[in-house]
């Protein structure tokens, strides 16, 4: 099943033969079947799109620095928030942890040589890139101004560029489905000897739950987007009342995918945090089973709460009643996870390495994101809050404060394994503080502006909202500087960082039993899993210092 044809490498180690120098040249990367290289390619791609989506965000914030026109007209602004949203959701957050980190880490955590279907894995990457290219082609066709949600009938009537973005999201969806399928089979079939389900690392459990959503929900998005294209091109009346369609039907279809997709975005992040907390607390993860099962609890509930996006759409009061009730139950497994992570720290021996800092940052921001989610699940409260900046603030706390913080935590956690180098911890500390402060400064004022009544997707706002918007804009500069700094010191580390040992954090999961960076075939010999991966007991002699 795996692609490796090389002879077993004997000299693999810190200075010897590894996956990065296994074969040379751009072509060897573009045609690689190695899950580690594909993961690294995803990582670079995602970072590139993150920069692009971030530039659009800076533009949005700059325009909102004053109540009236600041730097761009309304049409341009509408395109800015559309591209910011579409790029960040479809090209950054959805592939970030599963496709980039998951691809690199999952097979190694399982003690496997590769994913179950390496060729399919490479195909997923190219499908993703094709989707991205098609979507961005729209920039040359007047751009798109629908918002990332493509609500009908507006999306049917506006510029033709919409078709490209919709088609791009449709294509990229297949990448998501194939990756999910690949991961499910990999987890079932390629676990190392001794790696029973009860010993499966929580990151793998999280990716498993995520993969199920990817495989089951993404096809619904695909058919919805296809119907949208059919309606635009062939004038079939499905969503546009002018053609005999139902405008709200699209919202049901769209959120039937996109709400589960929210959990595609956050579950892997929760998985990363579940790995980091025990390692840096030197304690077993608290409530292993509860955390593993709660991922599936969330994945299951994810499919039956889409209607909470439609409380003011005109859907029936009975539907609103049920969707609000069911949505409340998302908070229960989520709460279980959060409490378990904090409990893991209790009477531990806590090291403040960079991954742990980001994990603590995640806890702070995700808690705010989660609690404000309960506001929006509450029927009466949502009527006032929906489509205001309160919603914007809420999902940025979850998606950026949650997923992106976890992603950054994961990058710092596995960076030594991926690159074989250590980074500058001082620079990492300062940039972390900058990101944390910048994030709260950017998004907390938006809760207040939203509660006061400022609607989202507004190019121009009432002067009463000026102060909150200006705080937010200044915050966005800190965020940009912070993330740029991370990119710079990680780049430096790759060029000239100190060599990383095989297991710098004294972790027990299998990927750390391989040298850094790992050999082409991941392990020098097939690892055997002898114990539960969270058997941490007090501080090892080598603790803290790599």
């Amino acid at each position, binding site marked *: 099943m795996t692609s490796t044809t090389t002879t077993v490498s004997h000299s693999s180690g810190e200075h010897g033969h590894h996956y990065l120098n296994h074969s040379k040249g751009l072509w060897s990367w573009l045609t690689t079947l190695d899950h580690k290289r594909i993961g690294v390619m995803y990582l670079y791609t995602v970072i590139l799109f993150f920069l692009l989506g971030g530039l659009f965000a800076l533009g949005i914030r700059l325009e909102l620095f004053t*109540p*009236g*026109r*600041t730097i761009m007209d*309304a049409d341009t602004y*509408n395109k800015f928030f559309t591209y910011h949203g579409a790029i960040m959701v479809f090209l950054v957050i959805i592939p970030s942890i599963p496709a980039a980190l998951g691809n690199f880490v999952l097979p190694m955590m399982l003690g496997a040589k590769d994913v179950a279907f390496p060729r399919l894995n490479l195909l997923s990457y190219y499908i993703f890139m094709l989707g991205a290219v098609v979507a961005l082609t729209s920039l040359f066709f007047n751009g798109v101004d*629908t918002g990332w949600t493509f609500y009908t009938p*507006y999306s049917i*009537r506006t510029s033709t560029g919409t078709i490209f973005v919709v088609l791009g999201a449709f294509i990229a969806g297949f990448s998501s489905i194939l990756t999910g399928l690949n991961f499910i089979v990999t987890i079932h079939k390629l676990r190392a000897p001794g790696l029973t389900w009860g010993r499966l690392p929580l990151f793998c459990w999280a990716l498993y739950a995520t993969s199920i959503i990817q495989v089951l929900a993404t096809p619904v998005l695909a058919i919805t987007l296809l119907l949208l294209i059919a309606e635009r091109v062939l004038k079939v009346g499905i969503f546009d*009342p002018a053609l005999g369609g139902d405008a709200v039907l699209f919202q049901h279809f769209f959120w039937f995918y996109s709400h589960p997709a929210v959990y595609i975005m956050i579950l892997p992040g929760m998985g990363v945090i579940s790995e980091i907390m025990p390692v840096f607390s030197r*304690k*077993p993860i*608290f409530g*292993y089973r*509860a955390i593993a099962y709660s991922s599936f609890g969330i994945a299951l509930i994810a499919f039956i709460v889409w209607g909470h996006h439609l409380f*003011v759409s*005109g859907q029936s*009061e009975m539907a609103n009643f049920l969707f609000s009730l069911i949505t*409340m*139950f998302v*908070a*229960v497994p989520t709460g*279980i996870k959060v*409490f378990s992570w*904090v409990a893991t*720290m209790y*009477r531990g*021996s*806590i090291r*403040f390495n960079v991954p742990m800092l980001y994990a*603590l940052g995640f*806890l*702070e921001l995700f*808690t705010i994101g989660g*609690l404000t989610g309960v*506001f929006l699940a*509450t*029927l*009466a*409260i949502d009527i*006032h809050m929906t*489509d205001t900046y309160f919603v914007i603030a809420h999902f940025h706390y979850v998606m950026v404060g949650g997923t992106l913080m976890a992603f950054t935590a994961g990058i710092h956690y596995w960076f030594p394994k991926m690159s074989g180098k250590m980074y500058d911890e001082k620079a990492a500390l300062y940039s972390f503080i900058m990101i944390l402060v910048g994030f709260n400064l950017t998004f907390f004022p938006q809760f207040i502006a939203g*509660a*006061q*009544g400022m*609607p*989202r*997707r*507004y*190019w*121009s706002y*009432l*002067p*009463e909202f*000026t*102060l909150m918007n200006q705080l937010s804009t200044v915050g966005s500069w800190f965020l940009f500087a912070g993330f740029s700094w991370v990119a710079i010191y990680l780049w430096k580390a790759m060029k000239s960082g100190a060599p990383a040992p095989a297991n710098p954090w004294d972790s027990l999961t299998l990927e750390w039993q391989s040298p850094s960076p790992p050999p082409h075939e991941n392990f020098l010999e097939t690892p055997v899993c002898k114990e539960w991966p*969270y058997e*941490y*007991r*007090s501080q090892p002699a080598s603790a803290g210092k790599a």
Partner: protein
Amino acid sequence: MKLAYAGTLPLQGTEIAAQWDSLYWFMVILSVFFFVLVVGGMIYFAVRYRNSVAKKTLYIKDNHLIEATWTIIPTILLMVIFGWGYVVYNRMTQAPSDAYEVRVIGKQWLWQFQYDDGRTTVNELYVPANRPVKLIMTSEDVIHSFFVPNFRIKQDVVPGMYSSVWFNTTMPGKHQVFCTEYCGTSHSLMEAQVIALDEKQWSDWVRGKSIDNVPVNGLGNVPFTAAEREGKTEQSAQAGGEGSIQLAGLALEGKKVTEAKGCVACHSADGTAKVGPSFKGAFGRKAEFVSGDSVTADENYIRESIVNPQAKVVKGFGPVMPTFQGMVSETEINAVIAYLKALK
């Protein structure tokens, strides 16, 4: 200029708004409690058990009692919140049967209100205070959403169907209305005002008198002119737009009409083309149309453009303007024409 809103919530324009606020503050307090519990606990553990002081760790994998506690207590609290939220929501949606009805039509980018007596207004919804009012709403094009922060109500306005919303305001005066479903270019300019009238004003309005000097309640009481929207100060707008022309009399009246009827969402006064052609220089120019025809813009052409805008669509612009037939009086059209002439 006042750049910050006084409270963290809008004014309480209805009794339901007050009930909404109670639930909101209950949830804020509960959230602060859980935030302090989680993040405070996290910080306390991080400091108390930092590895420089805590060498030995506790080996513990789970504890069913504590896990049951943090499953059951939040579940109960969530059910309380859900129930409370539903009760308030139910009051928001059940309009009393004797409510005064007004029909609302949303279109890109204005709000039109139709009353029982046949009158129609644009962007100004006249209602009696202290009496339930029910709005029966639909859209002529894309989805819009009718949001009144002071009343804590919001309802999407969907083409091809009717949706409704009701309120009973205890606060006479103007209340800001926003469109909160993204609807294109001038989405953020699609504003309106609920004008709640006390008994005397209401009987004046019913008898067809015009109502002036109604104060603004909270949001929207900071002056924000169309020119400022475009990012210009009043002075530069004067220089670039109306210039040194002192608008007075009928022309000034016309300017007010264009602002009240939402014309300025799409038409500038300074020569900038927005969704539609600018008012500046509109009168007397040779207008070229999509059809290839052209005409010198005179009074009849301006009038036709207002009541039947699709008849002649200016080259370079889309056929998107809705008709204002029946929504502007002849005197108002005359005023607008006078204004356009003055903007030459």
